[in-house]
């Protein structure tokens, strides 16, 4: 005797694997189509091309000699500064870059962060054209999610973490169709104490590049996208570190006050100022500024691991070809000039 048409004896197998294969294929094709479409849309703004070093073998141009001397800032001590970022360039693709491994990757990523200058005077139209927020203390890094894995890299390009995350393409999930082209790049600070990535800027999202977008748009975009992705959820199997947004204010009196004195969930390390119209520009830019004083940063002067202020402060100075020693302030402060004999001896 047979069961009624619609009644499946449930000791029999459920859906056929063939049907499953069919569905998974359709899913993969749909995802690939979406990726192709998104790529086409992104190419519109030709934003995927970035400056990059000459590919192929051969050493990089030697970085300019670096010397460690005393100074007042953690900023230059925490991470090493790579050499000149305006090396001979060629069209380069972020997607390609995310595939780079080892030394190549380190070199490439070391150049990609937008670096603020010290705030030494008050820009015009500060209250209309600028944002301000309290910079979380920690390691500045680039977080790239693609191909089912998320990698964070420090300013010198070395890998900080390799982990699954809820960022687009950031973990291998059941969705086997996976979207190989869907990668995202975030500019973050890793805050050790609560093991949290604070997102201070968004560079690419789901393969959509934001390099040529204004800060205003990038901040708007990260605000709306990050939460939706689940990246701000508590850690789980497929999401090892939690991400968080930082509160961003307009640079009016209230905003400045809030950023400067307001309570935040992280340890503050100065204030960052972003010009609303500024695109994401790699390297130092006067359209992003940093301010530190004793009240809003513990790193206004260097401390050792116990929190004591050492007798000597360190600073990284750059030795110019004309043997001048300069800081990377803008304009650079010339500290002095080395004696040619000294350099020869070295």
């Amino acid at each position, binding site marked *: *005797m047979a069961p009624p048409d619609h*009644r499946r004896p449930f000791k029999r197998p459920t859906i056929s*694997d063939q049907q499953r294969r069919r569905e998974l294929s359709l899913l993969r094709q749909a995802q690939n*189509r979406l990726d192709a479409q998104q790529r086409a*849309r992104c190419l*519109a703004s030709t934003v995927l091309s970035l400056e990059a070093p000459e590919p192929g073998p051969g050493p990089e141009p030697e970085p300019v000699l670096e010397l460690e001397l005393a100074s007042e800032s953690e900023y230059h001590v925490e991470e090493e500064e790579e050499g000149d970022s305006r090396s001979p360039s060629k069209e380069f693709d972020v997607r390609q870059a995310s595939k780079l491994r080892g030394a190549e990757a380190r070199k490439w990523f070391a150049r990609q962060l937008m670096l603020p200058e010290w705030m030494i005077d008050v820009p015009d139209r500060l209250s209309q054209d600028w944002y301000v927020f309290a910079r979380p203390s920690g390691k500045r890094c680039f977080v790239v999610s693609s191909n089912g894995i998320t990698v964070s890299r420090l300013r010198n390009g070395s890998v900080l973490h390799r982990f699954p995350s809820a960022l687009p393409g950031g*973990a291998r999930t059941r969705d*086997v169709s996976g979207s190989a082209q869907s990668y995202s790049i975030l500019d973050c600070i890793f805050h050790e104490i609560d093991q949290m990535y604070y997102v201070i800027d968004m560079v690419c999202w789901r393969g959509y590049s934001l390099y040529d977008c204004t800060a205003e748009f990038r901040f708007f975009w990260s605000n709306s996208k990050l939460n939706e992705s689940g990246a701000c959820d508590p850690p789980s199997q497929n999401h090892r570190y939690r991400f968080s947004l930082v509160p961003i204010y307009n640079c009016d009196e209230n905003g400045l006050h809030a950023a400067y004195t307001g309570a935040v969930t992280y340890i503050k390390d100065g204030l960052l100022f972003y010009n609303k119209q500024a695109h994401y520009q790699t390297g130092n830019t006067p359209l992003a500024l940093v301010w530190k004083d004793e009240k809003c940063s513990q790193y206004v002067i260097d401390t050792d691991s116990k929190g004591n202020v050492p007798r000597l402060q360190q600073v990284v100075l750059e030795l110019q070809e004309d043997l001048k020693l300069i800081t990377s302030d803008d304009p650079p402060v010339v500290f002095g000039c080395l004696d040619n004999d000294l350099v020869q001896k070295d």
Partner: protein
Amino acid sequence: MAMEVTQILLNAQSVDGAVRKHAEDNLKQFQEQNLPSFLLSLAGELANEEKPAESRKLAGLILKNALDAKEQHRKYEFVQRWLALDPSVKGQIKNCLIKTLSSPSHDARSTASQVIAKVAGIELPQKQWPELIGTLLSNIQQLPAHTKQATLETLGYICEEVSPEAVEQDNVNQILTAVVQGMNASEVNNDVRLAATRALYNALGFAQANFSNDMERDYIMRVVCEATLSPEVKIRQAAFECLVAISSTYYEKLAPYIHDIFNITAKAVKEDEEPVALQAIEFWSSICDEEIDILEEYGSDFTGDSEVPCYYFIKQALPVLVPLLLETLLKQEEDQDQDEGAWNIAMAGGTCLGLVARTVGDDIVPLVMPFIELNITKPDWRQREAATYAFGSILEGPSPEKLVPLVNVALNFMLSALMKDPSNHVKDTTAWTLGRMFEFLHGSMLETPIITPANCQQIVTVLLQSMKDVPNVAEKACGALYFLAQGYEDMGPSPSPLTPFFQDILQALYAVTRREDAGESRLRTAAYETLNEVVRCSTDDTSPMVMQLVPHIMMELHQTLEAHKLSTDEREKQNELQGLLCGCLQVIIQKLGSSEATKYVFLQYADQMMALFLRVFSCRSATAHEEAMLAIGALAYATGSGFEKYMSEFYRYLEMGLQNFEDYQVCAITVGVVGDLCRALEDKILPYCDAIMTQLLKDLSSNQLHRSVKPPIFSCFGDIALAIGENFEKYLVYAMPMLQSAAELSAHTSGADDDMTEYTNSLRNGILEAYSGIFQGFKGSPKTQLLMPYAPHILQFLDSLYMEKEMDDVVTKTAIGVLGDLADTLGSNAGPLIQQAISSKDFLNECLSSDDHMIKESAEWAKLAINRAISI
């Protein structure tokens, strides 16, 4: 003008093939030469009491087949042909049919009933033959029993054939009155009562108004319930079938009767013959279906004002229903596990118990546990099997909090039973129960894992051992392993707990596929399906082992292609195996080809693999073709532009697939593969595009091709345009008008049913994806102005979609994306047009504030593109 056809009809049933063939040709010729005369002759033959029973019956069947066909377009053709016949011919045929209902020959009456229903199926919706019901029912009470029986049977067939809207409420009332009277206990003739009960089954869908009237409903329900007590088993079975149909059609009207129905069904389950008892159990399964649906609709936010309220019949009946069902589990048949089609009280009872568990959740657990504890260690295999089956049945529905502690206790027992129980039945059900545990209580979603580093090894060892057991047990063990692997699938790139056993698992599964007896109990299929799932959940550390599997699977496939001179039966099995092997390779390609770490090593096999797939196409099997095609799509995606070298050889099979109207699944999949090829080859696909586009355009204009293939074909236009860019120019003149007319057809959905609405939306999505691909393909080309003339229509289409408000989220997302693509590609030229379109304002704004992030993302992109187009 009727003709003598008796001899031809008798010859058409001759044992002599030549005579038969000749007669069939004669009939065909006659039909082609003079259809009215042909049909009239058949009707006359059927009605003529002096003719032999055989020729009458065949005459009726041919007549019936001239009115209806399975394929949609043939059916339509027949309907039109009948409607066009001369009214007097139709009148004569109908008279013959009605007259036959009073024939002493049962066969003749029954055949006439069916033909009348087919004619009614054509004419009633056209408001023709309005007197039919009245004619049938005039003085029905005075008719002799055999005519009464035939009349009731005819009414039942009519209700099955036509939709309720085609019958006037007056006629419905007349039908129901006659039917219910025929069912009544006072009807002494069992044939009449049975025909009436079966007719009611079909007429229930017409009784909406009558079921809303308390008195009428009470009366119908009373008669049905009484019929379940008839001394005649067939009447009891038919009456329970009515109850089952009522439970799903009139669930919300059942409350006053449910108590009585419970008593009736309980008695039938315990005492009645199997066909009746099965229907009685089915009643409760059907109530579960209803309540599961309703509760699902309530979802988490129960507002109390859902369309159909839940009466919680199952929850209320639980304390008596569960023991009743548990009893049935002890009535197993000896060989039910070997027989794939088996269906008996124990299986129906277990299936119902599983549905009850899904309906009530936690509440079922305390009612079932004592039964399990009492029986699980008894010497009689029936008791151990029933206890295990009961446990397996309740694993879906109750909460993990409730089940996990029980499973933690049971797991060891089950593993040991699977190894040691002397009964194959018990082992079969035990392995199935383990599979259910892993399916519902194992995976990254669950907080407390039932599988730990401590017991994982034992579980795997037992399952692999069990895969060497008799085929039906081994098949269930494969199933359990399938779900075990699936639970680890979304664990991320960290080493899987299965890693230490991965090699053993692959080897064991591969060994099962090669068992001599793997053809029994679906074992081979289960082993390959499990192998696929294990491959899907492999991680970087186990992918080298998957890689080692590749040459073995390829060798197997090679061997199936070398086998010659097979019997039909052997060839069928061979084709099935080819399908499984291609499916397995497809999964491996997708897995190893999607990771940079394995892709390049894996692609060394691409040449050999492709050669094998091409050979599969030379075998005639739709399933194997479909699987090979899917595998090739995955391979194209993995190889990228390197796939070009296979194109010249592969192309003819691609074209064959695109021409395969009959197996439309193959056609649909081939269309998808064209998309894969476009993305892999990009402009290198150009040399093949003329032929592909020609075929796709042909497919679109064919009315033989299943409609579900058409939306993917439109999407495929987009894929092609995106790949070849401005080279799509020459196809614009063909593709655009097709898109435009399809767009017009799909712009409105009013009055369509759910199926049609869903189809319309998939069609819209295909059309929009085509537009997207075309715009993006032309972007930056000097030829973009070629698209300008189409812009007004496309914007109008978007506007009409917006006004209609019947889009699903996917269409909304694609539609707003097209707006952006249009702006992006046409730029300031289209600025004024865009500004006039409602889509660029209200629709865009709505999408910008959508909760769906995909829609929002597309809308934000569209906004950027529009701003740029307008501002320049």
